[in-house]
């Protein structure tokens, strides 16, 4: 048992660390306090269940290894992994080393300054091994710091076109973080140089320093600077983007315990906002950046504005909600849902729809084309032809127009008004007694599935057509046409329907590959979710998307959304057709 070592220079670190811990405990407690009863129960039930283990595994994979970040961008993933996992190793191996030396009774600052207190004692268990392991972990972190510093000045090094623009406060904390590890290397090497000890990294650096610098005078101040820098980082952490480190872990636990974002509970949103590390992966994904040149509405900046309580209503409205950012967010933040929460409700209480759907007919299948469906009569006619051939007993619910599905209202933040529209359609569908609802519009499809609480089967028309072809209810031949398929955002990323439209197209034509497909598909720009985008900018986005779609020179660009069709058609860059049109054309009488 060794005497407890102490030097006054450990105080800045100890004070900084203690303040940070106190702040975090208060913060965590306040979150749980302000959750509603339902969520508190979920926490209680989840705490000692397998869910917590699953969360711990996810924390290891995402917060330390940064698996999702690797999937998006390998070099950026390496940078984050080396910093997070390397630092984690330093803390864990350091703690084991310190407690081994002290026989399990080390004060919590001791492992951090171990080399200073124990410069050349190799008598305890695995002493040489610890030295080498600690050097390896430090080298891992330092490699990440080098990438991070280079990235600030030359972002292409990690394959990014744009990196996050930082505020002054973030920069101060960023510099203190960058300094921690080089300072640690210098301080440890100085001590090692004086005692002729050290591992594969600290020994040579120490020898080099001993040969060129007045080490005796430098060693003690270096440890002081290291301790003060740690203190600065810990005190600055809650006020900077690095708050994401202690928050993301909590978010992963909350999510695994089943807590979801709710309109009337802002706590989880706060946790999500604080979890954003501002890695900037969302910036290059955003077509408002790449096609329109907007640099302040991307998810990272929007969340930053919410966090700093800055004006953000313009940013809340200027978003396509295409979900391209959300689908790659390494933290898995519900970016669209947060954006929607910040759209205010301006529909007066007096909003009472004065109109009704046509009277319901008793059928097996209800077909709903939606408002936009009436803007693309070819699709509508094709669907009627297919439905007639199917032999199903169907009712074209809005053949002569009908009440809107309510999703456009919802996307504009007018939730209460949307409910009133939904109630009208829900009643018509229930009155028809149908077991299946088919819609040719992904916007309607999404709201039918998510908000209507219908006890019947809800199909997008591509799913329905695939079923008809598979069961032989309609017979199709193969057209001599090369098609490129455009995934509508609401259907693909929004509802996870990727395979069915492709299967149908494969049956009636020749599918050609597109550079940005499925999860990475581009938005047509016409999205109803964007409330303010001028029509000229929508056109820019549509042109960007059509450029990608026509890379392999298809005869026709196929899509499965009336809004996408209408928007892409305007570019006049290639013929655009709905999947249903191609099927109707390929149908054998």
């Amino acid at each position, binding site marked *: 048992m060794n005497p407890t070592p102490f030097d006054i220079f450990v105080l800045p670190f100890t004070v900084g660390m203690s303040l940070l811990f106190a702040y975090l405990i208060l913060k965590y407690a306040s979150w749980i306090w302000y959750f509603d009863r339902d969520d508190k129960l979920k926490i209680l039930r989840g705490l000692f269940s397998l869910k917590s283990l699953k969360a711990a595994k996810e924390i290891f994979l995402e917060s330390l290894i940064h698996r999702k970040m690797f999937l998006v961008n390998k070099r950026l993933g390496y940078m984050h992994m080396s910093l997070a996992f390397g630092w984690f190793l330093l803390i864990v191996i350091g703690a084991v080393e310190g407690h081994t030396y002290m026989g399990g009774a080390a004060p919590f600052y001791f492992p951090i300054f171990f080399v200073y207190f124990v410069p050349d004692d190799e008598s305890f268990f695995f002493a040489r091994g610890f030295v080498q392991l600690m050097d390896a972990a430090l080298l891992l972190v330092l490699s990440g710091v080098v990438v991070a510093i280079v990235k600030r000045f030359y972002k292409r090094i990690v394959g990014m076109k744009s990196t996050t623009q930082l505020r002054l406060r973030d920069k101060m904390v960023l510099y203190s973080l960058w300094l921690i590890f080089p300072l640690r290397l210098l301080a440890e090497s100085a001590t090692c140089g004086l005692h002729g000890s050290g591992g594969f990294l600290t020994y040579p650096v120490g020898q080099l320093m001993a040969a060129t610098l007045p080490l005796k005078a430098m060693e003690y101040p270096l440890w002081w600077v290291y301790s003060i820098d740690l203190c600065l980082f810990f005190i600055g952490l809650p006020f900077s983007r690095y708050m994401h480190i202690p928050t993301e872990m909590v978010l992963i636990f909350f999510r695994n315990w089943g807590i979801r974002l709710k309109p009337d509970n802002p706590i989880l949103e706060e946790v999500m906002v604080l979890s954003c590390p501002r890695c900037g992966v969302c910036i290059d994904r955003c077509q408002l950046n790449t096609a329109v040149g907007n640099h302040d509405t991307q998810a990272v900046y929007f969340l930053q504005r919410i966090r700093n309580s800055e004006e953000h209503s313009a940013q809340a409205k200027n978003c396509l909600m295409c979900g391209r950012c959300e689908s790659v967010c390494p933290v898995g933040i519900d970016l669209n849902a947060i954006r929607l929460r910040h759209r205010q409700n301006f529909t007066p209480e007096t909003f009472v729809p004065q*109109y009704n759907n046509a009277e319901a007919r008793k059928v097996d299948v209800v077909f709903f084309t939606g408002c*936009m469906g009436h*803007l693309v009569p070819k699709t509508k006619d094709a669907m009627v032809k297919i439905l007639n051939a199917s032999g199903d007993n169907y009712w074209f619910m809005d053949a002569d127009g*009908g009440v809107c599905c309510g999703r456009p209202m919802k996307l*504009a933040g007018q939730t209460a008004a949307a409910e009133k529209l939904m109630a009208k359609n829900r009643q018509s569908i229930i009155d028809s007694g149908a077991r299946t609802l088919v819609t040719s519009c992904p916007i309607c499809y999404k709201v039918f599935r998510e908000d209507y609480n219908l006890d019947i089967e809800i199909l997008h028309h591509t799913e329905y057509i695939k079923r008809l072809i598979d069961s032989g209810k309609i017979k199709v031949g193969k057209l001599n046409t090369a098609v490129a398929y455009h995934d509508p955002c609401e259907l693909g990323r929004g509802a996870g329907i990727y395979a069915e439209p492709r299967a149908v197209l494969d049956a009636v034509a020749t599918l050609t590959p597109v550079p940005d497909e499925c999860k990475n598909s581009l938005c047509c720009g016409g999205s109803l979710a964007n409330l*303010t985008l001028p029509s000229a900018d929508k056109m820019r986005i549509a042109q960007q998307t059509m450029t990608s779609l026509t890379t392999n020179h298809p005869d026709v660009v196929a899509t499965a959304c009336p809004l996408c069709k209408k928007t892409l058609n305007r570019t006049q860059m290639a013929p655009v057709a709905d999947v249903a049109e191609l099927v109707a054309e390929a149908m054998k009488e």
Partner: protein
Amino acid sequence: MWGFKIAKSQSINYDRNDKEIMRTVLDNEPSLRVCMACGGCTSTCSAGNLLPTFNIRRLNTLLQRGEYTQLRNELNNCMLCGKCTLVCPRGVNIRNIVLNTREALMKYESDTI
């Protein structure tokens, strides 16, 4: 004796119009300025199809005249489906104008009460 007479003036004094909401809406959605009142929006309107008295084209006139009571009643019918915006040959973001007018009306009413 020819059936002619001098009619009373039926001119409207536009200077007395309350243009506050009009100005707010134009600030937020300047595309309204290029509206040529062609009526494409009205002919495609989903709500107008079900409720023939609802005419979205009238929105611009009502805004300019400052007829807020009628404006509020008209806007109560819009479902925000966005078809009007899609068919507008001048690229007017009509859906955003409806949203902005509703917002401005609510603010205006809470200020005047």
